[in-house]
């Protein structure tokens, strides 16, 4: 049978349609793999402290807020800065950063809207950042490099927040003013912002047009981009129209918790549950697949029960929401289960724990470790020359600190205290592995264990044992701090023959306050990085700047440290890294700390979850997750 030209064309078209159908079939096949119910359920172990980016402080809140708010830039899952509301990440090469490093120009996307439909323009960015500066919340200093930040901070103080306290001579009006100022702080800030009061606008922050933001800095700051990128905090964009309706508590209600993120809150019963849903026609990508997020809000004491509920299939995952430190016994049990162990993810996180020595004789604690400087020499540890300069003591204090550091077996600590699951030995420097500024595996001489060397150093520094008599190790109680303290006590007793008394503090806030106030001779210390930049560590914990802001527990400071830090902070990140490395070297040389362990997060994911996970800093965004058929 012969086919007519028409039939042939028809056949060709049919064949092409068939090919297209097959091609389409593959994508529709993928969607068929998705479960019909795209509700993600997980327990969350703390009620929201606040979801207001201007004052947000806790990781547990940040993990939620990162799905509701966006900044101009964002960290991707590899911790690289990517454009978010901005079209590009400003660099010197694309003209976004001026040659002198003082001016950053951000071009905004024109399709960004809040979840209530309001369009996002440069005015929203200016409002958000000025508001965050005025509120002077925990992360306000992330904007501290912008010209005019200090002036806004001063204006905040002058707002009547610190009036003369009413005493016996205060008039009734003065007393009332004091009480009002107590209650209406955020409302007052909002009023000033609404009135465009120049005292509450950073002079270096301008908007040449609706979609361009220019930030001028006081001095070059290579860390500026990292700081404003920190998810959920002061760099995020918020909606002035909504906040004006309830300056203090706008974020507590689903109808006024408005952001630019992929998800919005739909229901919230405090200390019970919260629900979130995707924002329709969200501007970003990837588009959300989940149709609902349901969180049961419990507390840390419920973790074991919630893990059992996860095993029953009541939850899809456990560990999200900044709660990845799960009970060790449960994790070890799951590791032994041939099926469940496949669903366990151990993810190195960003907290390092160490012992801090008080090395500053002007600190209240005094003690035998208060001598931080010395001349450089080479020390042989475990019979191997490290090739690293360790400062020799000008007195006994340095040797004493080194003796205590080398007497601790960090591998054994991770095994005994963490069962090599909840932490890993800190032998590669202060900054955790996976972050910029990590020194390198086994690079830190203080991470070594050498009992005989430790004993020799102790004999040299304190032959009569008078210096170490009555020595105390101070720490805040709770897991794993109690176990760590007992372990350290045993190590110093066994390897040095020194009896160190334990000084437990049940109240963590009082302990932190006293530690930062330099009241302990030797104490538990640590840092959880805020963003992927070494500046976050070296600015906040050591040196003159930290000492001024009373966050320098050890009291360590030197001219070299301050000069190197100032130089590093001003440089672009790639050039700054070698300088920050010098700071690590200096702190190690002078034995300011005993490295203990790096934290490891534990997550339980059902196998049907696609895209769920966590990096060193934060959980994967909800819009990356989908639920497969199961």
């Amino acid at each position, binding site marked *: 049978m012969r086919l007519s030209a028409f039939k042939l064309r028809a056949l060709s078209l049919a064949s092409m349609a068939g090919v297209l159908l097959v091609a389409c079939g593959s994508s529709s096949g993928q969607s068929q793999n998705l479960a019909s119910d795209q509700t993600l359920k997980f327990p969350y172990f703390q009620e929201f402290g606040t979801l207001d980016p201007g004052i947000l402080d806790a990781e547990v809140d940040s993990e939620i807020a990162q799905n509701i708010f966006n900044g101009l830039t964002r960290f991707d899952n590899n911790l690289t800065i990517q454009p978010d509301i901005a079209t590009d990440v400003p660099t010197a090469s694309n003209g976004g950063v001026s040659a002198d490093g003082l001016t950053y120009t951000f071009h905004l996307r024109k399709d960004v809207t809040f979840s209530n439909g309001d369009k996002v323009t440069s005015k929203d960015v200016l409002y958000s950042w000025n508001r965050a500066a005025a509120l002077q919340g925990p992360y306000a200093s992330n904007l501290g490099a912008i010209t005019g930040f200090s002036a806004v901070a001063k204006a905040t103080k002058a707002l009547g927040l610190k009036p003369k*306290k009413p005493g016996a001579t205060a008039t009734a009006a003065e007393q009332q003013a004091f009480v009002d100022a107590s209650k209406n*702080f955020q409302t007052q800030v909002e009023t000033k912002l609404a009135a465009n009061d120049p005292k509450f606008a950073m002079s270096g922050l301008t908007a040449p047009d609706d979609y361009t933001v220019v930030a001028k800095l006081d001095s070059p700051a290579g860390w500026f981009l990292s700081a404003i990128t920190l998810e959920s905090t002061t760099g995020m964009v918020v909606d002035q129209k909504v906040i004006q309706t309830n300056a*203090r508590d706008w974020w507590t209600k689903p109808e006024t918790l408005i952001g630019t993120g992929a998800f919005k809150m739909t229901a919230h*019963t*405090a200390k*019970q549950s919260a629900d979130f849903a995707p924002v329709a026609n969200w501007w970003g990508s990837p588009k959300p697949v989940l149709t609902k997020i349901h969180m049961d*809000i419990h507390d840390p004491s419920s973790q074991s029960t919630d893990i*059992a509920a996860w095993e029953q299939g009541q939850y899809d995952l456990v560990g999200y929401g900044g709660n990845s430190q799960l009970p060790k016994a449960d994790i070890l049990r799951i590791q032994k289960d041939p099926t469940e162990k496949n669903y366990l993810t151990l993810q190195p996180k960003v907290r390092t724990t160490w012992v801090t020595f008080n090395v500053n004789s002007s600190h209240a604690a005094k003690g035998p470790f208060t001598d931080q400087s010395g001349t450089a020499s080479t020390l042989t540890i475990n019979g191997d020359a490290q090739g690293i300069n360790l400062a020799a003591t000008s007195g006994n204090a340095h040797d004493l600190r080194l003796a205590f550091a080398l007497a601790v077996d960090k591998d054994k600590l991770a095994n005994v205290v963490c069962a090599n699951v909840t932490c890993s030995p800190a032998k590669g420097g202060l900054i955790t592995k996976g972050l910029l500024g990590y020194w390198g595996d086994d690079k830190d001489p203080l991470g070594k264990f050498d009992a005989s060397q430790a004993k020799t150093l102790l004999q040299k520094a304190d032959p009569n044992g008078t210096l170490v008599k009555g020595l105390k190790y101070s720490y805040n109680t709770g897991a794993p701090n109690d176990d760590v303290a007992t372990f350290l006590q045993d190590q110093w007793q066994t390897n040095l023959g020194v009896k160190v008394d334990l000084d437990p503090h049940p109240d963590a806030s009082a302990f932190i*306050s006293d530690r930062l106030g330099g009241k302990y001779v030797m104490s538990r210390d640590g840092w959880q990085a805020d963003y992927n930049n070494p500046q976050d560590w070296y600015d906040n914990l050591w040196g003159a700047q930290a000492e001024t*802001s009373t966050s320098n527990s050890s009291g360590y400071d030197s001219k070299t440290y301050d000069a190197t830090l100032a130089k590093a902070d001003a440089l672009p990140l790639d050039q700054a890294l070698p300088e920050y490395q010098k700071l690590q070297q200096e702190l190690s040389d002078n034995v300011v700390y005993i490295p203990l362990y790096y934290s490891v997060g534990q997550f339980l994911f059902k196998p049907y979850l696609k895209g769920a996970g966590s990096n060193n800093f934060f959980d994967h965004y909800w819009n990356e997750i989908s639920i497969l058929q199961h």
Partner: protein
Amino acid sequence: MLTRGTLAYIGQRLVLIAFTVVAVSSLVFIGIHQLPGNAFISERVRGDRLELVLHEYGLDRPLLEQYQEWATNAFLHGDLGQSFVNRGLDITPLVLRELTVSAEVGGTALLITIGLGMLLGVVAAIKQNTWIDYLLTTTSVIGYSMPSFVLASFLLLFFAVFLASATGGAFYYPLHWSGTYGDPIQLSIPAFALGFPYASIVARLTRASMLEVIRQDYIRTARAKGLRERVVIIRHGLRNALIPVTTILGPLVIGIITGSVVIESIFTIPGLGKEFVGSILRHDYNITIGVFTMYALMVGVANLVVDISYTAIDPRIRY
């Protein structure tokens, strides 16, 4: 029926309860503000920033001023303030909701305490010195020897973990308290864990009381009249045996209320008990005071209800 004397008694007790609630909350307010540390201090909230926050919450004012404001709001307006840790969280609706959850669990536990305790006690008494008596007596001894949190852990392990594992996930106790109130299945295990130790006490007491009562002349008379044994036991024996049991209901109710602190945490029940310890550890003073106030109210009202119930059970008691 409520007589004038009973109403006057109730009125007196209500005044006493009000006084107790005010005294307890005031003492807690003063006491808890003496604790070291506060809810706000962290590595990033110190110095000027801490001062700002303390000022915002009025915590830098003299304690007496703070108390005056708190007491005015609490006792005149029923406003217990806001949480320090969870900003913007009003405490009064929170603790009232949690109170109803705890009441639901506690009420179920109380039913188990009374119902199961009496049943075991009566059966043990009428089957005295049989294997049933020995079994029930032994069970009761185990019950009141075992703290509720230990029992809760065993029950949780068995019904939620082992049963799920043994049946391949077909049957198990669901460890998922979703929403405010639990369904009967969700309530069953925690309420049993909370109530069973007290049910054991009630069983022991009921058994002893029943053994004494069923030897009384009027029971013999009832039997001689040809009444059925069930009627003799329930109508004539049990009602009189209940009088000593009723007298311990007050302490039992308080035990159940305080026991809920642990049980709610183990079963992740969003009640007042779970709030109790957490708020102290978090320095969330306003919540701690609110929870204490609610507990004082609960204990006072529960004791009053128990005292009133005496008159219903024993007509000889009059107020």
